[in-house]
């Protein structure tokens, strides 16, 4: 019961972050702030969803796998965000 409640709260909060990130991606004016919105959705939103699914995982190994997925996505999206921002800065310097 408490576990289910935790899941509902965490996953919903994660979904809110994804929604906010998507709105930001569509509405923010320049590439850097769009990246900012996107990486928040990726890292925090996915983290909350992964954390929310842990009580439903059933076994400790499945829970650890969920958290591992989050960590790997965190590393990937952070690095991609950095690289895109660098590319943007380099292109802006060229203009």
């Amino acid at each position: 019961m408490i576990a289910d409640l935790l899941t509902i709260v965490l996953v919903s909060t994660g979904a809110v972050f994804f929604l906010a990130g998507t709105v930001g991606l569509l509405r923010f004016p320049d590439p850097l702030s769009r990246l900012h919105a996107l990486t928040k959705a990726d890292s925090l939103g996915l983290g909350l969803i992964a954390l929310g699914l842990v009580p439903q995982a059933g076994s400790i190994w499945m829970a650890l796998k969920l958290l591992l997925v989050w960590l790997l996505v965190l590393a990937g999206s952070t690095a991609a965000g950095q690289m895109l921002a660098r590319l943007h800065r380099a292109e802006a310097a060229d203009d």
Partner: protein
Amino acid sequence: MTELLALTLALPLLAGALFIVATASTRAALFGFFAFGLFLALAWVALDAVDVALTEAAIGGGATGLLLLRLNGRMRHPVSLGEPAGPRLKIAAGLLAALVTLALGALLLALPEPAPSLAAATVEPLPTLGIGNPVAAVLIAYRALDTLLEIVVLLIAVVGLRALGTDRGWGGRPVPWPEGGPSPALVFLARLLIPAGLVFAAYLFWVGADAPGGKFQASTLLAALWLLAIMAGLAPAPSSGGRWTGRALAIGPLAFIAAGAIGIAAAGSFLAWPEPVAKPMIIAVELALAVSIVVALVLLVAGPPERETGR
């Protein structure tokens, strides 16, 4: 519930396909292709075809998308394919595509209930092979000749790519990303992801015998890790004139053909696995194949060899 899930998965597929065809920028279409591949993989998971989903994610979406992206980066001048199609041709092509889709849908609905299936016949002899995953059994035992020919096709593609290089580059290394140093973020990512990816690739290779996975998916993952290391400047690209590159490319098909010849001698036909040693032989052949697939995929994505600087 399943209908709702199927619809939520089918809509992005349709939208993605339309976006890829309709968008004006090649780069946008390519990124659309990556997203489309991911949704297609999810759709396969929803259909309980996890083997197909893994292959789609690794090879269909991932490796093919990367090849196209690389091609797009190398094409300095857009290549014209002649006159763009007129409205009449477009309408005819659209009608033809709609007709094929309708015919396929009608055939699917006309299937008898239950649909004819060879599943039971496929599963029955699995214990003699030491394989628990029927998809792996189809690939390595029932349709082994197809798998052998797939590897040969991959090799022919590598030969074709080498032929596209300049004379001066013959025997050199591909120079995938020459401008500037790699971004520190990329180096960090490579250092973090490669060890984790190696573990996962070994797991995928081994688990393929009994569960979704296998040598193709594991090899694609390994090739992706190698490419990541090349991009981050942590590892060199394979040298096309190097002694090891040729051997690594040849070992897979040669091992497969040798196993086929043993099959003729021991079990009576080409590529028949003699029963007591079927499992170890299959693993040996799959390992050799994995080596060839990894090198071939890395060479294909890295591009034709160019002359090494500093010689």
